């Protein structure tokens, strides 16, 4: 047996397949196809949560995604705890374990409920008023306490073990919503052969056909017709049908985000199955068939467990076979609740009374209810609900006042009417229009290629809905280029139709009362709060919303927005459209972070780029550092060395014999064309026209403003071909910078740029023995100093494969950079390493590279420069072609600020105590005794221990630095002031003799 409230013969679930589950530790049984809500109701459980602010007992309001109350925590294991799951949406599986939220110590006895008694303290805007003083306490005391007290479940504190998938898709027609309208539109579009996607948030399609027993289409029960139509659509190759899929966001140019819940409903989803799949769909046309959501009645204590929407009670009965009570009352302002009363009465549930706010409504449902012997009270209001953990009575009064009568009930079904779901339409930037007759906002002005059909368009009646939807689906397909439809429109034999109803507070909860008549259940906003907000000066609905938090909970006001708006409008004495409607924003329902992240986690969070030589370095035990997306060998510790010991050994090794360094990550661009030299002249400060093929030059590139943008060595391979190198981090932006100027400023030049960064692996061999190591492996290149002087390049072969061999140095030693096609990188490295071993060469990493270049005063763009440094500031005036008429940045360099005296200039610093190593970034002052804040005249840009110099060395940007040679300056640090002497930038081999050493 799956619960005492399950009615034999009612509903569509197969009673044979039971599922065990627990709620707050109590074991229950449900059946396959249940939601957690229907299974709990089948067991007579209505109390499932405590409200956000007042901790009032709460039950199920709805049977769908609009649920504000029944939020629970579901834990599959320690790492998979999901808070705020709507029990009305969560499908039951065997073994499901759910916990209630926001209560302590238990759901039935919750200490926090004292807030309900103390509620005058917690009126609208109480956050802004009560917790103003002392200001500092907001962050440390008030906010954490409020957050803890108003908890909405507990987040898991372990990494999410599930994985999430993502898919881009395109289609001619995207139909959102799979009720009668959506299905009809999809059928019409699909029959033309157009590509169609149809999505619905429910596991089964049908929408309101789930509960509308009066619907008959093509000779069948409405829900059965829906299943048949879906089966037909699924069988078509041009149609994709997505169940359990919520369209949560409608973005520009018909780009729609949808989340498909792939495995949350399964007992044991396999590891290979994603938990959710994000669909990012670009559709030529969108059909919105998102339906309508029923509104509750706003009356005193309308939040007691057992009080729910009439359509919800009907869904639980007609789909799940569950009676929400044994003796129900009905409170309504429209016809649709009558259908619920009739269905329940026919199923054997006692309907104590229907209370209808309207004076003398007529119609077939009213006649039928009367014929079934149900007591009907016109022109009356329910002014109060009794009971605490479960409703036990409703008190009825004539709506204009008079004697009260209390009727015992165990559930109240209510309906104030239906609100068209214009969320996605509004997100598409469409403008809604207020229909004064039907008191609802419906789609008005469209902003994108979409169309609304059925209830979300304010279309009443099944027949009209199918007509409209079928025509819209066919038109959307035709507009997308499809042929005319060859199918036939579904024929509606019978349907239900309701419109009208009421907005705002019902009698008994008017301005003269202080009762708690809830408008927004999830955020505990009452009719009184809305009025108070208006009285305190909030006249715009946007202000009222923020002051009261109405509609700002995770349900985004699906049931409350219209009531709140109507109460505000009434209080202001203005018509509703003048008060306005708040903007609908994505997501329609909450979306997990996992589904947004998708595949992009762990190794796929960002590409990790490795060089061809990386496996060798890894095998040698190199420690790597991240440089942009690259992994670069930082240093190669041997035999338990720490970083300093390893770097000292590498630094000495390079200068003593030789070192091998993987420079493959350097950006490389091949500049080709008859105007290549002209282009280089324009992009770099240096002259290039006269550079001979086979020679290299160190180039500096500026931005338009005259500041250094990048640097690197450039080799001229032929009159029309340059091999340009850039910094590792600068490679992509330098390429874009060059391409940008080529296309916009210099389009007349016949020259093209190709990235060759990844074509060539680069092995730097530096040190006195470098030539001895390389020479035996090279063929076709004369390695003598005469034939291959410093700053030259030759093409030939090494180890039998092509090479571009550069003679250049970033260490101050005789040096080479061996470029080989990347797939040969590791083998050539290994051959060079084997040769190097004969001479005692070392492998060195980026740290040693940094130290060695600093010993020579070679700058690193981005470390010794920061976007405010000119070539002159960096001591590189020699690299600026004085005779050049134009290059990018030439005008910038002439700006008064850039030629003024006292600019920060790059200089060397030596600490008075050679053992002290300065901190990079440390500030420099001229007088350490001055009052704080001191005048800072510069900062340290590079600082290292230099084993080769036997002391610390540093580079710094110092105001007027080159005029301060020999001056003593000061670096104040937390542990004392460090004395430094201003020096030149070259600390080792000042004459540069070792380049040919």
């Amino acid at each position, binding site marked *: 047996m799956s619960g005492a409230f399950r009615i034999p013969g009612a509903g569509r679930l197969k009673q044979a397949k039971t599922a065990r589950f627990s709620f707050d530790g109590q074991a229950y049984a449900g059946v396959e196809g249940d939601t957690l809500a229907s299974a709990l109701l089948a067991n007579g459980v209505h109390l499932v949560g405590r409200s956000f602010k007042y901790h009032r007992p709460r039950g199920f309001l709805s049977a769908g995604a609009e649920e504000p109350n029944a939020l629970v925590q579901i834990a599959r294991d320690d790492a998979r705890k999901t808070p705020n799951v709507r029990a009305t949406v969560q499908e039951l599986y065997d073994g499901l374990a759910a916990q209630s939220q926001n209560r302590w110590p238990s759901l039935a006895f919750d200490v926090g409920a004292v807030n309900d008694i103390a509620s005058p303290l917690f009126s609208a805007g109480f956050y802004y008023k009560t917790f103003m003083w002392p200001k500092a306490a907001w962050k440390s005391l008030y906010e954490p306490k409020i957050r803890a007290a108003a908890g909405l479940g507990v987040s898991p504190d372990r990494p999410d073990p599930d994985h999430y998938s993502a898919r881009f898709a395109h289609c001619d027609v995207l139909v959102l919503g799979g009720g009668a309208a959506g299905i009809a539109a999809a059928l019409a579009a699909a029959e033309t052969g157009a590509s169609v996607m149809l999505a619905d948030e429910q596991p089964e399609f049908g929408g309101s056909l789930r509960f509308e027993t009066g619907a008959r289409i093509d000779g069948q029960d409405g829900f059965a017709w829906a299943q048949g139509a879906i089966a037909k659509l699924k069988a078509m190759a041009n149609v994709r049908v997505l169940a359990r899929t919520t369209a949560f966001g409608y973005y520009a140019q018909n780009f729609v985000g949808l989340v498909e819940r792939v495995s949350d409903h399964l007992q044991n989803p396999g590891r290979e199955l994603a938990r959710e799949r994000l669909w990012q769909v670009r559709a030529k046309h969108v059909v919105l068939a998102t339906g309508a959501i029923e509104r509750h009645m706003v009356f005193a204590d309308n939040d007691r467990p057992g009080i729910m929407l009439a359509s919800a009670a009907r869904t639980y009965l007609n789909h799940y076979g569950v009676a929400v009570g044994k003796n129900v009352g009905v409170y309504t302002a429209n016809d649709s609740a009558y259908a619920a009363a009739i269905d329940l009465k026919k199923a054997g549930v006692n309907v104590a009374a229907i209370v209808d706010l309207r004076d003398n409504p007529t119609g077939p449902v009213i006649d039928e209810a009367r014929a079934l012997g149900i007591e009907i009270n016109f022109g009356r209001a329910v002014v109060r609900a009794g009971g605490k953990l479960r409703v036990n009575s409703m008190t009825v009064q004539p709506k204009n006042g008079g004697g009260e009568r209390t009727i015992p009930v165990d559930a109240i079904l209510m309906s104030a009417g239906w609100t068209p779901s214009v969320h996605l339409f509004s997100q598409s930037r469409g403008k809604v229009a207020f229909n004064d007759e039907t008191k609802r906002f419906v789609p008005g002005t469209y902003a994108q290629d979409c169309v609304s059909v059925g209830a979300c368009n304010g279309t009443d009646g099944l027949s009209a809905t199918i007509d409209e939807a079928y025509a819209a689906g066919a038109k959307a397909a035709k507009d997308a280029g499809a042929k005319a439809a060859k199918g036939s429109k579904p024929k509606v034999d019978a349907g239900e139709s309701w419109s009208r109803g009421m907005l705002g507070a019902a009698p008994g909860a008017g301005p003269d009362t202080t009762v708690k008549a809830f408008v927004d259940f999830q955020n505990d906003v009452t009719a009184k709060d809305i009025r108070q907000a208006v009285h305190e000066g909030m006249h715009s609905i946007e202000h009222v919303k923020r002051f009261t938090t109405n509609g700002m909970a995770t349900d985004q006001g699906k049931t409350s927005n219209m009531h709140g708006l109507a109460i505000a409008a009434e209080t202001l004495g203005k018509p509703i459209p003048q008060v306005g409607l708040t903007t609908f924003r994505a997501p329609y329902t909450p979306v997990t972070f996992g589904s947004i992240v998708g595949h992009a986690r762990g190794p796929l969070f960002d590409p990790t780029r490795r060089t061809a030589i990386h496996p060798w370095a890894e095998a040698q035990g190199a420690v790597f550092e991240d440089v942009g997306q690259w992994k670069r060998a930082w240093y190669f510790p041997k035999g338990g060395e720490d970083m300093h010991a390893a770097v000292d050994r590498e630094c000495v090794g390079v200068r003593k014999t030789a070192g091998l360094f993987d420079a493959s990550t350097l950006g490389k661009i091949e500049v080709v064309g008859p105007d290549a030299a002209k282009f280089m002249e324009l992009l770099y400060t240096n002259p290039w026209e006269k550079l001979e093929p086979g020679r290299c030059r160190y180039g500096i590139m500026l931005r338009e403003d005259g500041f250094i943008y990048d640097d690197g060595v450039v080799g001229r391979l032929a009159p029309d071909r340059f091999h340009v190198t850039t910094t590792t981090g600068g490679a992509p932006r330098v390429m874009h910078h060059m391409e940008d100027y080529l296309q916009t400023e210099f389009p007349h030049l016949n020259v093209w740029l190709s990235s060759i960064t990844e074509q060539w692996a680069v092995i730097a061999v530096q040190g006195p023995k470098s030539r001895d190591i390389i020479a035996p492996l090279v063929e076709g290149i004369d390695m003598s100093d005469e034939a291959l002087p410093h700053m030259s390049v030759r093409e030939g072969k090494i180890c039998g494969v092509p090479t571009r061999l550069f003679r250049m140095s970033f260490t101050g030693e005789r040096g080479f950079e061996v470029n080989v096609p990347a797939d*040969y990188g590791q083998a050539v490295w290994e051959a060079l390493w084997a040769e190097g071993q004969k001479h005692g060469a070392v492998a060195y990493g980026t740290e040693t590279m940094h130290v060695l270049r600093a010993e020579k005063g070679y700058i690193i763009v981005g470390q010794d420069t920061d976007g405010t440094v000119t070539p002159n500031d960096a001591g590189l005036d020699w690299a600026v072609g004085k005779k050049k008429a134009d290059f990018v940045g030439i005008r910038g360099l002439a700006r008064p600020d850039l030629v003024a005296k006292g600019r920060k200039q790059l200089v060397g610093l030596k600490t008075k105590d050679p053992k002290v190593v300065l901190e990079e970034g440390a500030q420099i002052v001229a007088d350490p005794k001055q009052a704080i804040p001191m005048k800072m005249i510069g900062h340290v840009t590079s600082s290292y221990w230099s084993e080769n110099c036997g002391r610390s060395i540093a580079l710094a940007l110092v105001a007027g630095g080159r005029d301060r040679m020999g001056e003593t300056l000061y670096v104040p640090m937390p542990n004392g002031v460090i004395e430094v002497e201003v020096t030149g930038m070259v600390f080792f081999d000042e004459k540069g003799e070792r380049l040919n050493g």
Partner: protein
Amino acid sequence: MAKAATKTNASAMSSSAERRSALAGRSVSATGVRLEVMPPAERISLRAPEASVAALSKALGVTLPTKPKTSATKAGRTALWLGPDEWLVIDEAGKDPLADCAKVTALHSAVGISHRNVAFCVTGPAAAAAINGGCPQDLSLEVFPVGAASRTILGKSEIVLLRSAADAFRVECWRSFSDYVFTLLSEAASDAAA
């Protein structure tokens, strides 16, 4: 795999350096999709104005396509349109397109990038779905027919995509992005049958 890039002038060295391709030999099979690393190929980045297209086409033995998102293939050599003056030429027949272009006097730029790229082959009825796991392009046969080519993105990497058959794609990416691209395609492939 030990094979020199240039086969001429037998080296004076006793042996030449071993070629080690990124990800060589890796493959993944999932329902409806197979993912393989393709063998090395000769590649050039070709840039040229419209006036040079005929001469280059003749030299290369394949007519350079001039329509966006198209390619042309002849005798193991494929030219992919990447831009109004840009083609990626891939030779899988062991011939050297760089040498062929060197004979052309018409204005152009040909740059060897054989080692810059790594190619994957994605095949099977769910191949398009696997690529759509990270690529936002419409890969339906109507919009992206056999022979269609595009420089596009896969997740956070640039790729060049070529449809070689109704259910087969060639995915080219830069060498250091190949591990990322292969891993993303593998993950997407495992979900592609849905």
